[in-house]
């Protein structure tokens, strides 16, 4: 569904994304992880036609971005990181504007607006001003907006930042539900458990380069399935073991409090991107 070939983006001297190649299949939930400034948002901006690549090829839904930009725009839905709702309009009007921009027929448009407002539980606030909304409500409205025109690919840039845990879990359910309906989802996130929970595959980026691409499970296994974690005067330390017995033997040699647990995606992330970045 999404096909990226040797894509680079340079801003003056700085290279934001360096020779990235990726293939994302239809119906896949794909996670893009990486520390701040790794190039995730730039990648999303290029894939959503907001920025043009310096070099490389982008193909979405069988269309090449440089030739059929308008077609790609009509099949993608985008939830950006920042709130970009129109504060001078109500939720209904925000959605109507989006529907009109996507050339939806009035009848279908109104029906979809009603459905989606109900879906994100904003139907009783449809005619208030967006300006007064909380962060969570705005985020939900942005998701409704991105889905209004029934896109084939959904881009979510940090979709759950600032949301209550309940809302976040509902949103995860929603994303899984959309996947089951054949929607392809590409999301970037800071919450590792979000990627672990949702994504079939994750790519880890650092300094504009792809440094790992696999299923969350496989990435964890690379380190070893078990982790022993302890703290000394220098900070938290972690050591990985393929075998549980080995791990517990090692844990027994330490005199401080230790934790023996299964390796998770966060470990993989930290190991791959280096501890220093995370601080």
């Amino acid at each position: 569904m999404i096909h990226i070939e040797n894509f680079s983006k340079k801003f003056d001297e700085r290279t934001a994304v360096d020779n990235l190649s990726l293939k994302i299949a239809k119906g896949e939930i794909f996670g893009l992880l990486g520390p701040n400034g790794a190039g995730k948002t730039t990648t999303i901006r290029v894939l959503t036609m907001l920025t043009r690549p310096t070099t490389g090829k982008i193909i979405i839904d069988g269309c090449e971005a440089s030739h059929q930009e308008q077609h790609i725009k009509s099949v993608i839905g985008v939830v950006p990181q920042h709130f970009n709702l129109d504060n001078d309009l109500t939720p209904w009007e925000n959605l109507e504007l989006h529907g009109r921009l996507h050339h939806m027929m009035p009848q279908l448009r109104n029906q979809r607006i009603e459905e989606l407002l109900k879906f994100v539980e904003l139907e009783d606030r449809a005619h208030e001003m967006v300006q007064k909304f909380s962060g969570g409500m705005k985020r939900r409205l942005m998701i409704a907006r991105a889905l209004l025109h029934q896109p084939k690919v959904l881009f979510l840039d940090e979709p759950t930042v600032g949301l209550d845990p309940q809302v976040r879990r509902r949103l995860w359910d929603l994303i899984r539900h959309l996947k089951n309906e054949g929607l392809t989802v590409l999301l970037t996130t800071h919450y590792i458990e979000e990627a672990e929970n949702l994504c079939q595959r994750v790519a880890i980026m650092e300094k504009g380069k792809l440094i790992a691409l696999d299923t969350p499970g496989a990435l964890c296994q690379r380190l070893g399935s078990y982790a022993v974690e302890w703290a000394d005067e220098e900070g938290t330390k972690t050591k990985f073991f393929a075998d549980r017995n080995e791990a517990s033997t090692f844990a027994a040699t330490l005199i401080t409090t230790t934790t023996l647990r299964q390796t998770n995606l966060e470990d993989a992330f930290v190991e791959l991107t280096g501890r220093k970045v995370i601080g």
Partner: protein
Amino acid sequence: MLYDIWTVFWRDWLVLKRRIGRFILSRMVSPILYLVAFGWGLGRSIQVNQGNYLDFIVPGIIALNSMNISFNSVGSPLNMSRVYHKTLEEYLIAPISSISFVFGKVLSGALRGLLSSLIIILLAFAFGAHALITVWFAVALVLNCLVFASMGLVAAMIMDTHEDMANFNTYVLLPMSFLCATFFIPDHLPAILRWLIEILPLTHASHALRAIVSGGGIPVLSLIIMAAYVTAFCGIGVWLMEKVRE
């Protein structure tokens, strides 16, 4: 494409409709001040071309006011939407062309300029001006609104902060409001300054409106120059909309 232009225009119309009362009231303030200060106050003792000064400055006030309103109703909201609110992205992500966006915005800015001009015309009659409103007057006024709405769009796409937008107002619009044949005829100014003033679009708007009101025939050259400005600014606007993605 027409539908997309309508969509962009529709959004602005929705916002204007909600604030129409406030819009009209606030638009009355500065023309009333001009009419009182220059028409009643200063104007009593001035004769221009054997006419009354109030009749002379009404076209000038209409020209400068439609300039300010058209420019600012596109300029500041678009600049805010591009730089701060990022709502411009909603249009950039949508399957519409840059041309549709530019035309929609320019038309909605021009509409606001026209509405506020209508308010001044009514006020001017109330103050006792004798203006002759004809089809050509409307043509010249619409052109002036389009010139400055499209200039507002270009400025909004170039300036990267709100402060720069304010500076653009101070350095470009403010001098034009006083110099471009609005309050006086710049015939007695030094030649270089006169040449410079002759190039500026607002001079042609004042000239054209005044010529039509006083029954002096159709100022074809001024209308052509204004149309050329509209074409140029819209063209630059479309180009900037494309460039924003680089």
